[in-house]
């Protein structure tokens, strides 16, 4: 097991249930990414009630609340302790190579020979920043979702936030509340209300079965795996954080950042349609929730169906912004993440840097698996509560593989 995040630890627990001997290699401490690679004010998008791992769950007094990063770290570290997970911390993997009968895993502390490897290093090892970042004038400071910590870290002055995913929306909101001018460049995004008919929207995703939709039932899986995280935030007020909220707060919405030419950021003129697409998609999802409630005879449990104000289109949305005029002193690139597989010396990574896998079973590499990737096996795969079902499936396959390999050897 490579990686002691929640997915790796969940899988470790399931392996232990089957008495499959294993070790969990972690480059830092348990829950490393949550400790080191998130900004100060970040809270989970999922509520505490959805903090469930195999044999372990949140048992505090605030099931509707959303954990802050130190709480997430404590939760995951608590899990590792409770399950006596065989973690070797401060043990970075330097390479994995295929050998006869399995794999050789090289670490700074020596080599391990094993029959099977589960990659649980996640999909967010590095920030994805578009190539046009190279054309940003030197006078403008750049930050990514991985190195941003809080507004005080940025120079004074206006901020251009690129990307209206959960990260982009949250950082635009936080920076606006710090009193700065914020311009948000909006590309494809996913709009959701925080609460729907009185319940958390992610409760609906789970209860209605949308989150359980399997990867092999999804028409365009590549697209589903690349969907930006929904525009949500975890606050005690259960506030909705959509583009209407942001524009009401004074965040200036512009189209997708298309190019930077002679120090001028150029934005798409197609903003209106992106709003329409996100609004339509949200309405289809709410229709699905309503249909589920109705057909299950559960309408009485909830408030009446609601539909939300369409995303308001700005009167005049500039098509360009002069980055040299001083109005913008920093850019925050909320343009997503990518995994890093430089240490994986097995030819299983495609030309876009992603693992080639079928529901977590890595292709053309017997005994090699992945866990904790977007829509690995289900829409809920990357959420904490999604780890268990995927882990059970992967371990079942792995156990079968080990049995087969043992028989072949015998």
């Amino acid at each position, binding site marked *: 097991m490579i990686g002691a995040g929640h997915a790796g630890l969940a899988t470790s627990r399931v392996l232990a249930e089957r008495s499959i001997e294993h070790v969990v290699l972690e480059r830092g401490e348990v829950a490393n990414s949550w400790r080191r690679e998130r900004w100060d004010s970040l809270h989970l998008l999922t509520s505490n009630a959805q903090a469930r791992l195999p044999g372990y769950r949140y048992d505090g007094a605030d099931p509707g609340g959303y954990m802050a990063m130190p709480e997430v770290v404590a939760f995951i570290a608590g899990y590792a302790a409770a399950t006596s997970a065989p973690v070797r911390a401060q043990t970075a993997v330097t390479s994995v190579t295929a050998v006869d009968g399995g794999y050789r895993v090289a670490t700074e502390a020596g080599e391990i020979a094993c029959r099977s490897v589960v990659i649980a290093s996640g999909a967010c090892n590095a920030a994805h920043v578009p190539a046009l970042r190279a054309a940003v004038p030197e006078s403008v400071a750049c930050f990514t979702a991985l190195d941003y910590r809080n507004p005080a870290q940025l120079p004074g002055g206006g901020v251009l936030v690129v990307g209206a995913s959960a990260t982009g929306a949250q950082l635009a909101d936080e920076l606006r509340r710090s009193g700065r001018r914020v311009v948000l460049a909006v590309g494809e995004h996913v709009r959701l209300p925080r609460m729907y008919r009185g319940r958390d929207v992610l409760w609906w995703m789970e209860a209605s079965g949308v989150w359980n939709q399997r990867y092999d*039932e*999804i*028409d365009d899986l590549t697209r589903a795996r690349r969907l930006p995280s929904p525009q949500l935030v975890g606050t005690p007020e259960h506030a909705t954080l959509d583009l209407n909220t942001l524009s009401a707060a004074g965040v200036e919405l512009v*189209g*997708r950042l*298309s*190019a930077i*030419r002679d120090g001028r950021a*150029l934005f*798409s*003129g*197609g903003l209106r*349609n992106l709003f*329409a*697409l996100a609004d*339509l998609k949200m*309405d*289809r*999802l709410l229709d*699905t929730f309503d249909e589920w409630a109705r057909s299950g005879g559960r309408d009485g449990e909830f408030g009446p169906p609601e539909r939300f104000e369409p995303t308001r289109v700005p009167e005049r949305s500039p098509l360009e912004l002069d980055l040299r005029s001083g109005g913008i002193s920093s850019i925050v690139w909320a343009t997503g993440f990518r995994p890093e597989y430089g240490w994986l010396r097995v030819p299983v990574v495609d030309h876009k840097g992603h693992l080639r896998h079928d529901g977590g079973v890595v292709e053309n590499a017997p005994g090699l698996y992945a866990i904790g990737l977007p829509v690995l096996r289900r829409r809920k795969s990357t959420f904490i509560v999604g780890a268990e079902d995927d882990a059970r499936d992967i371990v079942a396959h792995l156990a079968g593989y080990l049995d087969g390999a043992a028989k072949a050897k015998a």
Partner: protein
Amino acid sequence: MAEKKVEKKLKNGVNVDALLAAREALKQAPQAAKFTWRASCKWQTGTHSRSKVKGFHGLGAEQKHKTEFSFDVDHPEIFASEDIGATPVEYVLVGLASCLTAGVAAVAENRGIKLRSVEAQLEGAMDIQGILGIDSDVRNGFDDIKVTFKIDAENASKKDIQALVAQSQKRSAVYDIVSNPTNITVVVA
């Protein structure tokens, strides 16, 4: 939320099966997906030029249309011209309209929606102080393009139709060309 499975019979005349098959094949052969479209233009007189379209490159080979298409382009009489053909900017509106309309048909086919009629009206607002060089703060091109679709379909709700039109824009080449910056290199041979 999956797309409805479509009957084999073509509802709107778009061979979506072929397009989907092509999509799968090209995933495995990305080089074959690199197309180059071409046009050649010959000045006639005044502001009148004639452009021709026949050959293009794609799927790894030179291709050509069944016939050569010819376009006469000019300026109107109020521009002190002969009005032998539509203006270049009107050709852009035609390009946008046709790209979006074709997209509506293709997406409708894919979603099992039977179209009865699709009409689009386009308006491109332009302050000609830009092209006349009167005011450098005024751009040459359109300030705004408005497209109004009137669509009648047998088995689609208003939301379905809005979604059709939204998806057509999302996948439209001309919409992208017009709404986003595009590199243009002009050389003199």
